């Protein structure tokens, strides 16, 4: 247990002239929630996307259980047990919740055919997805209607539920409660507790300090692409955390 599930070492990422990540290092441990904090544009989503294989680091490396991992595509990251709830949710409006759940990892047969040519096992996918949505008590108007017709909260619930099903190692949630009311937020927070209890390393991005204090075992703060601090959040040091985020000297 002395090795972090995920470590980022000396990460550098540039988008043209923008230096989005400068020498960022962080760890995430099994059974812990690591909050990733920072103002708008601090580089939080960029770091998440580097870990999830959407972006490639310019320099630095990512270790899974202490071993260098080559997460050069989202498929590779998902294969390594890293699930992500993206800030933009990455939901397909034209697909149903069940289709969204399994998009990119469809259950198909026979196994000897190349993946795109396999036949969809729709019954299995519908059954599993329905069971999960039921278990998570996500209220959906219609299970077989495209996601397009659903409200912001319902969409967010689907995206979070999708990540929780497949989570095996690391789960990253990029502002998962941004579009949610109090009741729905509470559900997502409960899910996070559950993910943590199941032994996942959870990385949570949020602007809500109450959630951080309540849930996070440690907090990593980014400012303008640089890591400016790391501490154990508590009600006492909440102000320090905020100061660190906005960059005011306390």
């Amino acid at each position: 247990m002395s090795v972090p599930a995920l470590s980022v070492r000396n990460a550098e990422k540039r988008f043209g002239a923008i230096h989005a990540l400068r020498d960022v290092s962080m760890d995430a441990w099994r059974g812990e929630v690591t909050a990733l904090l920072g103002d708008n544009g601090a580089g939080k989503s960029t770091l998440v996307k580097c870990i999830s294989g959407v972006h490639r680091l310019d320099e630095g490396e990512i270790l899974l259980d202490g071993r260098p991992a080559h997460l050069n595509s989202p498929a590779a990251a998902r294969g390594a047990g890293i699930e992500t709830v993206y800030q933009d949710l990455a939901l397909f409006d034209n697909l149903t919740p069940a289709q969204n759940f399994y998009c990119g990892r469809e259950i198909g047969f026979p196994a000897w055919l190349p993946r795109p040519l396999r036949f969809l096992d729709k019954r299995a996918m519908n059954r599993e997805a329905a069971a999960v949505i039921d278990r998570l008590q996500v209220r959906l108007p219609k299970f077989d209607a495209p996601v397009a017709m659903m409200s912001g909260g319902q969409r967010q619930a689907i995206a979070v539920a999708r990540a929780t099903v497949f989570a095996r190692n690391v789960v990253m949630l990029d502002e998962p409660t941004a579009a949610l009311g109090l009741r729905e937020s509470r559900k997502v927070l409960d899910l996070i507790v559950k993910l943590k209890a199941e032994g996942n390393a959870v990385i949570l991005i949020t602007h809500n300090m109450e959630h951080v204090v309540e849930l996070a075992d440690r907090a990593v703060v980014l400012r303008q692409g640089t890591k400016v601090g790391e501490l154990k959040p508590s009600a006492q040091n909440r102000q320090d955390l905020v100061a660190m985020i906005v960059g005011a000297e306390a």
Partner: protein
Amino acid sequence: MREEARQTALRGTAAESGLLAVTLGLRLLGFGPVLILALLIVAASVGVPNFLKPINLGNILAQTAVIAIVAMGQQMVILTRGIDLSVGSNLALATVVGGLVYQAGGGGLAVIFAMLAAGMAVGAINGLVYVYGRLPHPFIITLAMLSICRGLALELAPGHTTMRGMPEAVKFLGGQTTLGVPNAFFVVVVVALLILMLTYAMVWGRWTYAVGGDPVAAREMGIPVRGVLISTYVFSGLCAGIGAVVLSGRTGASSPIYGNLLELDTIAAVIIGGASFLGGRGHLGHALIGAVMIGVIRNALNLLNVDIYFQMIAIGGVIVLAVEADVLRNRLEARARVLQAAKT
């Protein structure tokens, strides 16, 4: 406090009935193309002499077959937010390649294979250049291929003109009938069944919908977006090749001037049929309904001796209506989302 609860409940029911109305509107829009097609057929049956004669209906089927087949390929491309402007020229080039193989002594199978391979090769170039050339939109490469294929077809065809002669197998598929039904119709059915299987039963089809629905999300979910895009252009090319077989079979010839403006007809068919131009939505039923609509409009106006220029205007007008219907559908959906949120 009770007043507040009453207000909330009221808002809830208002949202409920509003949602019902919007859902109803969306349903109607969905059925629109079928209704219009039915009306067209009724109107033509009543108003156009000879329209219902079996020989004329057979004609419509035979004439519509090529548009229908190529439109089904076009529909797969439009589903992924793309467009294939090269299909008409591609078809012409495929017939010429087939004609050359025939003149070189190739038999039926060789000619058919050559036409399909030519179509797919052009499709592969479209897809590869679009994806790996990092073009902003497939419009540009398929437009270039529209020009290149037509030029190549004219260059390759001896005397830059029509070549007579096709093997029996090709004539059978494109020009003959079985039990009074044009064989071309059965070709359409086979292509439709193939697409049905690919899109509804197989992983590839699901991926095409995902890529069309949201290419960024598709990548984030680990779908090989580039491969999916390239494959849809290859598929569209294959459909152009099949169209080439049917058209050559019907005319018993190959020609570098075949398929002129076929890109317009097929795009029109897909859009008129009710698929979304914005991607992610549509199925082969849309392409087929649209193709039949165009076939019926053409045929009826022909029988009425309306000149060809007016036909072009009429079909253009229908396209504008269809695209507006698509826009309306998207707005209704956004409205439904708001009402849904208000309800819960």
